């Protein structure tokens, strides 16, 4: 008689496989439907305005003019301020927690930082109105929004950076220390090069969050129209904020314009993510020694 090599029944395996494929396909389907519907609804305004949708500063539903440049600018400017504030703070905290802090301080600090990440954004927004705008007199401005967004993305950048930094093998740190390096020199020689890719990824994730944040920005940015200026104390508006503020009383063309804003934001965040992935992969290839 021949050997029986048919093995155990593979029903469970087959079921798992189809569930996994189904879940994966569902995600793609949802993404595809979102993109399809949004682009379709954005088409009227883009057909009307053409490329001037991105270059015009004039946004007036009464005249049927929809130029998104001020909102595009507001989004990028506030996100840039947020990242400029959040990156040094996050990196500093992550390095402190992983390299400097004594063990008894490390756990509570990590806990508090992670707690900061779950504070609802409307709470940060209201705090910004009360404290930054009114108490410190910053008003509702690009700067106020940038600071609030910076505070909001600090926990996530810190958390991710900390995790990346902690993957530095002790042997790489000891290599630097054994050459007479100080702690900071060791961090520069071993920890940062090792973590570079992951740190860029963390910052990009924070940047994406800052650009997409709606309610906090809407509360403190000032909702001023037509502002394209590098003056951080000026009031302005951002893409998500203007959508939240105007959707309720918008007519058809106006809605189309707001949807076009959403599509633009969507495309920008995808682009940021793609760039981040490319940077991370390139730096990883580099440190593995395959290119020069």
């Amino acid at each position, binding site marked *: 008689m021949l050997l029986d090599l048919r093995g155990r029944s593979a029903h469970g395996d087959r079921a798992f496989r189809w569930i996994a494929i189904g879940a994966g396909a569902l995600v793609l389907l949802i993404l595809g439907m979102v993109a399809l519907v949004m682009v379709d609804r954005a088409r009227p305004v883009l057909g009307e305005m053409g490329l001037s949708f991105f270059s015009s500063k004039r946004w007036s539903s009464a005249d049927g003019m929809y130029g998104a440049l001020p909102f595009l600018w507001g989004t990028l400017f506030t996100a840039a301020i947020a990242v400029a504030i959040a990156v040094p703070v996050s990196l500093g905290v992550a390095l402190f927690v992983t390299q400097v802090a004594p063990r008894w301080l490390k756990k509570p600090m990590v806990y508090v930082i992670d707690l900061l990440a779950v504070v609802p954004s409307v709470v940060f927004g209201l705090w910004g109105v009360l404290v930054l705008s009114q108490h410190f007199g910053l008003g509702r401005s690009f700067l106020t929004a940038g600071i609030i967004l910076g505070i909001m993305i600090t926990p996530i950048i810190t958390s991710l950076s900390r995790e990346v930094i902690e993957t530095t093998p002790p042997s790489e740190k000891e290599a630097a220390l054994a050459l007479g*390096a100080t702690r900071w020199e060791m961090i520069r020689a071993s920890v940062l090069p090792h973590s570079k890719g992951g740190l860029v990824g963390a910052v990009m994730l924070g940047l994406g969050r800052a650009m997409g944040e709606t309610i906090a920005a809407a509360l403190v940015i000032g909702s001023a129209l037509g502002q394209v200026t590098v003056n951080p104390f000026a009031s302005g508006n951002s893409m998500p904020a203007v959508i939240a503020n105007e959707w309720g009383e918008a007519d058809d063309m106006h809605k189309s314009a707001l949807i076009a804003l959403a599509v633009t934001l969507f495309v920008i965040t995808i682009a940021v993510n793609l760039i981040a992935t490319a940077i991370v992969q390139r730096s990883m290839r580099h440190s593995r020694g395959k290119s020069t």
Partner: protein
Amino acid sequence: MIIESATESVKALRPMQRRAAPPLEETAVVFDAESVEVFYGSFRAVRGVTMKIYKNQITAFIGPSGCGKTTMLRAFNRMHDVIPGARVAGKLYYHGVDLYGPDVSATEVRRRIGMVFQKPNPFPKSIYDNIAFGPRVNGVKNTSELDAVVEKSLRSAALWDEVKDRLRHSALGLSGGQQQRLCIARTIAVQPDVVLMDEPCSALDPIATARIEELMRQLKSQFTIVIVTHNMQQAARVSDRTAFFTAELDAKNDQRCGILVEYDATAKIFSNPSDERTENYITGRFG
């Protein structure tokens, strides 16, 4: 060739007592350890180590796993400082200076007492930047000076000819044996006094191992070398003196603690050890 140096030393052997002054050339004392103990938290990993390390000689630490030989090695350049909870007790003098004294900077200690690790650990940087790192953190800025140090160090580590055309390439593209020689070059680039080696060949093949051993013989004219090795043949081949460590069960707290059993000329340890435990270990009856 392998046991040449060992047999030479055998000829010079005289009868001696356990832990008596070895018959080797009495060079200057570099390290003088008196009852050194190392703790990780409340766990005592090594106790009662009293020994002298001599200049321009190779001293090997051998013994079974967990006997504290690496722990003892790391006490010599204060690498325990960076491990939370680790602590060194007893007295450890380096050229007569208390290594753990209040005015002693661990950074300065490690500049003078370099270390090569078990697994090659080059920085994820170019070959050039790996070697130049040490001199740079120690204040060498001048490019031509750095170029010279890089070339000299790589030549000393017998790596120059293999890498001179790709100094700007990543060090991680080198083979394991080349990476370890790079790490040796990186260590000697800061012109240390002592080079500590923690099982430097355990991740390497026999050919790469032979290269490193050859290198150690060449380097000992400039440096004092202390090497931890699991490989007894390696200790017999390269070292002048050998220290045998073992782990002993402490009856009080039921924990194993490393002790120094016997320390003598390598030829003596491997031909006529004074302690039965050493003999059992080197003849393979234990460990």
